[in-house]
């Protein structure tokens, strides 16, 4: 795939826009409509009034909060330089988006446009046009989540997991295109493995180096994954590079966000952090789960999968807020009875990658200790299956663990890991994990994975790899989680689309 900003890509985008405009403005039999990428165009029913606006190609376009009956479509800018779109049309027929579906956008923080679609049908493919065109571009579609507890019609929820991916456009991307190569590796793997679409993208923090500014998000996120983010919801967790200067403004008279390394902060009103301005995350239980009343942490359901996004840095900011998040997590997990539960946050409890979970803490790595000492037991007591973090620029996947809250030296596979005669099981082949452990008779273990090499793969700490890890790599890549009614498979895919590690949990 060409890089998103290449001239070839821009030309292709222009072609798409032009074709769509012709489709929208002309009648349905216009032969140019057939040029629209994504397959043949069928005539719309003659008795349905179609949207008749022009297609706009925004500078950023992404989906949020895609659930069984709702979705948010969010965008900003116009690549062609004209006016920004203020409405969209949507429907289930790509070539006939009904006029009645047209929705006017709300202007939200930092000049984003967003439309909340409600009353949608579960597990259904919807198409949309930005600007109110009567037909949708091929890349502008999404599938709603299945009903609560159900698996999708294709039998599988697919989660694409990216950690510390935000190097594009930054000084860290020395060789150029590292994040794009991870993306291409994933797409190649998808193409070679049944072409199942991505249901959601989980971002493990540090999605935009070095400071998570709005401009850095543009390069590292919206220009890097445009097609994927226009078709699958992005669900992030906040990393340390998105916290600004310790999450507080040091400006004397305003609450402006100040990137730690300089650069332009976002404007008011509400949020001092670009991460919070850009995303529209569920705070009131809109997508299921316990309402959190903050975008710093939240939960949601997607069919038979429950996902929790935590803020691993909250404890170092304030003990009171940490206790509040912890109690919220317990309440959320206690109400959850999904087939699978996935938890994401930035700081991993176990790592020997570019951060060391044995390091003396007190600063940037204190959250590693906080999570391990205060949260892992909650996960294990409440049926969490897999936990994903970044922060270390590595791939480190643990055994099926319980009760390991100390330093690496205290890890005992016979005590802390699902094992056979003291030898920890790998989760592969005949050693696949069982959700209810045959050893303990309880759903009490978790696989913890560091998946922070989606934008760079850097150094290791002393005594790498961590003894609690079943597999460790210092290579670029991303993780694919496939969750059916009976099986969860997690796969680490490198830039060549090759599988370097996988494991299975059976129900």
């Amino acid at each position: 795939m060409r890089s998103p900003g290449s001239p070839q890509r821009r030309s292709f985008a222009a072609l798409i826009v032009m074709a769509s405009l012709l489709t929208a403005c002309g009648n349905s039999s216009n032969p140019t409509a057939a040029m629209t990428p994504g397959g043949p165009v069928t005539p719309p029913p003659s008795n349905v009034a179609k949207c008749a606006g022009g297609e706009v190609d925004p500078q950023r376009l992404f989906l949020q909060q895609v659930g069984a009956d709702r979705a948010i479509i969010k965008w900003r800018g116009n690549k062609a330089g004209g006016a920004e779109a203020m409405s969209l049309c949507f429907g289930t027929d790509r070539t006939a988006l009904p006029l009645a579906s047209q929705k006017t956008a709300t202007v939200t923080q930092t000049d984003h446009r967003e439309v909340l679609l409600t009353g949608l049908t579960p597990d259904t493919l919807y198409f949309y046009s930005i600007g109110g065109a009567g037909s949708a571009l091929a890349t502008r579609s999404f599938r709603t989540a299945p009903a609560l507890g159900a698996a999708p019609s294709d039998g599988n929820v697919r989660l694409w997991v990216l950690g510390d991916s935000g190097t594009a456009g930054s000084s860290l991307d020395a060789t150029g295109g590292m994040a794009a190569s991870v993306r291409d590796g994933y797409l190649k793997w998808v193409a070679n493995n049944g072409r199942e679409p991505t249901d959601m993208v989980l971002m493990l923090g540090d999605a935009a180096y070095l400071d998570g500014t709005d401009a850095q998000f543009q390069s590292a996120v919206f220009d890097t994954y445009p097609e994927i983010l226009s078709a699958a919801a992005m669900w992030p967790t906040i990393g340390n590079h998105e916290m600004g200067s310790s999450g507080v403004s040091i400006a004397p008279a305003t609450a402006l966000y100040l990137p730690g390394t300089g650069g332009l902060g976002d404007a008011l009103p509400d949020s001092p952090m670009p991460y919070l301005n850009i995303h529209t995350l569920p705070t009131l239980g809109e997508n299921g789960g316990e309402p959190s009343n903050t975008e710093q942490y939240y939960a949601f359901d997607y069919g038979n999968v429950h996902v929790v996004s935590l803020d691993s840095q909250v404890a170092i900011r304030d003990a009171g807020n940490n206790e509040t998040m912890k109690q919220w997590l317990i309440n959320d997990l206690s109400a959850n009875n999904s087939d699978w539960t996935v938890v994401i946050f930035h700081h991993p409890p176990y790592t020997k990658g570019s951060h060391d979970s044995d390091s003396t803490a007190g600063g940037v790595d204190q959250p590693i200790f906080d999570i391990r000492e205060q949260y892992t037991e909650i996960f294990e007591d409440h049926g969490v299956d897999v936990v994903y973090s970044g922060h270390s620029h590595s791939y480190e996947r643990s055994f099926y663990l319980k009760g390991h809250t100390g330093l690496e030296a205290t890890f005992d596979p016979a005590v802390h890991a699902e094992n056979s005669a003291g030898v920890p099981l790998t989760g592969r082949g005949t050693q696949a994990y069982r959700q209810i452990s045959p050893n303990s008779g309880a759903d009490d273990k978790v696989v913890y994975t560091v998946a922070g090499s989606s934008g760079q793969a850097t150094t290791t700490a002393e005594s790498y790899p961590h003894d609690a890890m079943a597999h460790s790599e210092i290579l670029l890549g991303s993780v694919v989680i496939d969750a059916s009614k009976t099986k969860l498979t997690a796969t680490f895919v490198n830039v060549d689309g090759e599988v370097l590690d996988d494991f299975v949990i059976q129900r």
Partner: protein
Amino acid sequence: MGLRWTRLLVCLGLFCTAAQAGIGLPERLVLLGERIAAAPADQGLYLRRALVYSDTGEFKLALADVDTAAQFGEVANTYFVRAIILYRLGQFAQALPLLNQFIKANPGHAEATMYRARVQRDAGQHEAALADYRRYFSLQARAEPGDYLTAARLMVELAGQGRKGYSRHAALAFLDARIQQLGNAPQLQRYAIEIEQQGCRSSEAVARLEQLHANARRAPQWHLHMAEQQLLLARTEAASASLADAKRLLDARRPSADRAQLLHRHDFLAALLTLPTTAKGRSQRTAQLYQRFYPVAAPGSPARSKMRWSDFEQADATHTDGPEDPAPDPHTALAGFEQPQSAASRYDAAWAAPIEPFYRCLRNRQSGSP
């Protein structure tokens, strides 16, 4: 001294290196160093680097950068950053006057106001802390739920100390106003329920439980909580119905530590429902049941250790009823109790904590105390 502070003090010693404090972060420090080299008189750059140093636990270097920043502009601009660093070092008395001066010069600075609230809270100056939390809420339209909870807890604490102008009622009013503002705030509502329960006001607790988000009812403990309040209100039918709902949800759960604890709580409540109707007998049997189900929480109980299922069986087999009420089957307490499948489901002393407020109210009611 907690482990965290031990680490912090180690990190403040001579042997704390950047690598120990956090491998990998220095990208920012390198970049800021380059920017400072290019603009050595830029006060803001030193302040930013000071915060990054502070983030890595390098407090001496952080304070040195604040000192340098003070040489290149208004000294007053450096007060907030210095106060943050001092706060992180636990030097509340030194941080407070700096924040006072900074806020005096910048009265609309929400973050500085919040920091002063935290400094005063941690320094034990709760009344002043609460005043600053209120100011912060007026500056920041939507604060973190934990900040609202902290303010409410301070109100309850001040009320408990008998301080004039503070009451649990005022704390509840504060929480209700915030719940109204936020639309749905289960964290705040749950604390309000806790306050009601502390006062054994079961009708109010029931009303608040009803107001919780629908998601809460997917949790077995919501139904157990409701059953407890119904029991306190002597609504046995409603309590039974709530227990049945809780059991139905628990039966659908995979075995886990959380489920084991909730099943135990369910079985205790179910056993309570079987108690004799005479007041005296009920009171005595309540205490016996509690001791049997929550042995390490009861007065005069043995060491706080985990117990095996066999411990329960042994305790039940040796149990004899008091002379006032010989009727009940000695195994009633264990009837329907699901035997744990493994060692993972052993009774844990921590299981008693969630039920202690209910038990206290129940005993108060049985003894006629308010």
